[in-house]
């Protein structure tokens, strides 16, 4: 009997999920909005996680650095959302950040994980910045949309700063004290199963790729891996096993439990007082 109920529930959920997510973008506009939101959600959520360090950084300079990077990432998201809002005819970009639920967010799971210790934050920033570097480098050459491309070029300059920052910390911590070395290694081990999503290409991506609005991230996987491996090894650390289980499905709404908690904090004020204004 209980199994029966479970089966009914699963089939209902499937119908719901299908109807919510499995509408493949057809028009150029739909594909562009999907791409903008996927890029922006990664950046908003990671920017929010980074902002949690404000006032808690291991030293003053690092507190400032993490806050600066958080601002950049949220700025990137805001610009991308604003363009999506323009296409969809919404009054402003706030809708995307404040009025969607966790299953509507299209970010990869890696960016929503709790901030962890400083080593975990650095491992994530390093892996994500390297991915962003290769992704944007290709997108700038490919994207045939002037406004979108202009944004990408602007963000690319800042991504380089972010990559330089986290790379230096990986080397400093990995090749540092016994404690910092162990924590850095543990951080990479823990996060590795979330790296697969950066290189998973689904039919939504393909719709955008076919319209010259996105690029296949598998094409730069080898370069990403080789750069990441070099830095991790230079930091006297061991590269985790690539054949392990990889998390998947977050871009289509299957998130970890952490995203809901993050959104509860981020969206609370705006949802409780939708018309609130800075005075």
């Amino acid at each position, binding site marked *: 009997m209980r199994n029966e109920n479970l089966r009914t529930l699963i089939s209902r959920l499937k119908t719901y999920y299908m109807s919510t997510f499995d509408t493949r973008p057809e028009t150029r506009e739909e594909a562009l909005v999907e791409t903008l939101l996927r890029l922006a959600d990664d950046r908003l959520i990671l920017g929010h996680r980074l902002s949690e360090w404000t006032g808690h950084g291991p030293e003053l*300079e*690092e507190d400032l650095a993490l806050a600066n990077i958080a601002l950049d990432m949220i700025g990137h998201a805001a610009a991308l959302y604003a363009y999506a809002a323009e296409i969809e005819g919404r009054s402003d970009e706030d809708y995307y950040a404040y009025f969607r639920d966790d299953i509507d967010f299209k970010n990869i799971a890696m960016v929503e994980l709790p901030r962890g210790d400083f080593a975990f934050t650095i491992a994530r920033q390093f892996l994500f910045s390297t991915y962003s570097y290769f992704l944007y480098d290709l997108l700038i050459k490919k994207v045939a949309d002037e406004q979108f491309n202009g944004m990408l070029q602007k963000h690319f300059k800042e991504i380089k700063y972010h990559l330089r920052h986290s790379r230096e910390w990986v080397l400093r911590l990995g090749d540092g004290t016994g404690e910092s070395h162990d924590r850095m290694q543990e951080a990479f081990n823990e996060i590795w199963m979330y790296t697969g999503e950066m290189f998973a290409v689904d039919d939504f991506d393909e719709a955008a790729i076919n319209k010259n609005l996105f690029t296949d991230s598998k094409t730069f996987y080898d370069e990403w891996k080789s750069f990441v491996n070099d830095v991790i090894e230079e930091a006297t650390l061991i590269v985790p096993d690539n054949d392990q289980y990889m998390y998947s499905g977050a871009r289509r709404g299957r998130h970890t439990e952490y995203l809901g908690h993050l959104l509860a904090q981020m969206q609370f004020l705006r949802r409780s007082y939708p018309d609130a204004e800075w005075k």
Partner: protein
Amino acid sequence: MRCEAQDLRLKTMNTDQTISQQQIWTWLEEVIDPEIPVLNVVEMGIVRDVEFEGDQVIVKITPTYSGCPAMNAIEVEIRKKLKEKGIVDFFVKTDFSKSWTTDWMTDHAKKKLKEYGIAPPEKTEMDDDFLASLKNKNKIVPCPFCDSLETELQSEFGSTACKSQYYCHGCSQPFEHFKCI
């Protein structure tokens, strides 16, 4: 319809007054960057264009850094300035089509930065192989106070998104450097 000519005239609140695009550029020079109060938004290269569309003035601005919290304040200040000068119909538009670079900063602005105690940005270089360049040592930035080259990068990120922090061993002073992007 966009009007290219410089001497086009526009009605303001005082109907007998007419103004040129050049006049608007001059007024915008009165809007000061809130984070770097020695520079105005025109010298910074934030104002990209002033256009007349019918009776409307369109001011195109571009953000310096994506996460720069001063951008909103700058936009508000530009609006205030135009209103103060009696412009009735205007629109401040954020333009992303070309990304801001420190090369747009005038030489005069860079000189003022140095006098203010901020090491100005150098000319940007094309880094063909950025990933390989990560292994290079950081460029030497001369101290804005004593011009010593014995300076040391302390953090890539400073009090604002556009600056990094240095320390000068020549005069034992910390200083900020305007990052070149």
